[in-house]
């Protein structure tokens, strides 16, 4: 299966990564190459094989649904590229 530039643009949109035309074509070729190479996985018979989610070594644990290190507003905001008081700022999203 061969990838077209329109698909690359759609994927870039989903991934929220801006692309120019030249990059889209370069990436189309590279991703096409990688996808061609991973096609070899179709040779493996996976009938009745469950997907491996983790190694199965860690036991699932539950914890109380409670804040464990709260009241650290300044820490949380410390690396904000832009803030206003106790808030992160973004461009206007509602007209």
């Amino acid at each position, binding site marked *: 299966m061969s990838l077209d530039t329109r698909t690359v643009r759609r994927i870039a949109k989903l991934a929220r*990564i*801006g692309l120019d035309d030249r990059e889209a074509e370069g990436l189309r070729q590279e991703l096409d190459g990688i*996808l061609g*190479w991973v096609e070899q*996985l179709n040779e493996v018979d996976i009938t009745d094989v469950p997907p491996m989610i*983790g190694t199965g070594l860690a036991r699932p644990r539950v914890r109380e649904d409670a804040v464990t290190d709260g009241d650290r507003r300044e820490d949380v905001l410390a690396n904000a590229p832009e803030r206003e008081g106790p808030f992160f700022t973004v*461009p206007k999203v509602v007209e």
Partner: protein
Amino acid sequence: MTDMTLAAARRALAAREISAVELVDSHNKAIESLNGDVNAFIITTPEQAREAAKAADTLLAKGEGGLLCGIPLGVKDLFCTNGVRTTAASNILRDFVPPYESAVTANLLSEGAIFLGKTNLDEFAMGSTNLTSAFGGVTNPWRRSGSDAKLVPGGSSGGSAAAVAAGMVLGATGTDTGGSIRQPAAFCGITGVKPTYGRCSRFGTIAFASSLDQAGPMARNLEDCAWMLEAMAGFDKRDSTSVDRPVPRYADALERGVKGMKVGIPREYRAPNMPREIEALWEQGIAWLREAGAEPVEVSLPHTKYGLPTYYIVALAEASSNLARYDGVRFGERVKADSLDALYEATRHAGFGEEVRRRILMGTYVLSSGYYDAYYLRAQKVRTMIQRDFLSAFEKVDVLLTPTAPSAAFAHDEKPTDPVQVYLNDVFTVPASMAGVPALSLPAGLDAQGLPLGLQLIGRYFDEETLFAAGRVMEKAAGFSTRPALFAEFGA
């Protein structure tokens, strides 16, 4: 103090033959003189280290202090360090200062280790060359005989490997997702251990592929790695994949020997185009273990060739999800735009390098509607088959022996342009990562050009001790003592 191992420094510090301040000063000096050429460190913290050394000396004078009290280490710049910039070698985190400490570095600090700085890596740990760092590539301290060509240190923990190899630190932390500790250790002639998945907490380590990432030690020999791993490892309830098991004293396992041990030699690792030197070194490794009383047994891991393509689907899918948080809103460099979507797109285009963008897109594609089953779900099922290969091999043998990498270090300008060719560097290391079993690489010899080559040992879940025991036998037999062209001859 020249060319001291971490283990020797521990003994000398405890006996008060040297002081922690002397030790840290000489290493700070080594970094100052060599880092311009090697670029192993993104950030150095000499004054902070010197203060910590003074405190360590006070403890040592009282006969106190933890496992690594006064030992100068490098920290891969993927571990969050409280109040010290942590970049993941990416422009998007260029000025990020974490307000918390990663579990692994906190463990090391509580055992008295002293951090001299943050080591360079492939951006977000994505690469096998250390050429994808936003802070410039790392140069391997080794040179081919009769050549000045700058070689890559391997990746992604290339800065850590180079810093240890060049004598800038006694050990360094690495992380291994598909070989990122073992392959650079092999390229730089040092020892690196990727423990069992779940042995070291991932809390506070910047995530690449969560189901694979595992921290581990990189140092000059196995004893050094044993002390570091004991300090780094341990259960952490903040990481849901951390496994609640006591941490053994790994150093006690070193001299166990290999009498009666069965060593598996996986048939499928004999790649038809493997360089003869690597094949010969592998044979040598088998002979060393046989002479020490182990029995080599041929085993089959039939899904070996599917390890890499499976890895690139699973790891990239997880990466696209993990890296979604870097959007220029809560942290990281922001590129302004008129709308929120445009802000995200511009920020992520500018902030991520080419390899990271390529991998995020690939990961987003295999997770996208219509392709999820064909790629991601299928890869997870093949991953089960790879895990089963290892489990059935370990019913017959105690440990597996393979080469670490398909070549020695190559030059900066010899890097293949085809991404798939670059990915093939990890062909021997990736399957163990997929299964989550522990593995290590140790320097076993030199190639015809005078460059180090590594051998890999792979073990059962949580049986790092057998790896240390078998590795120690090979380490003694190999007697690897050559130092790279760039090596700090630092005195007290």
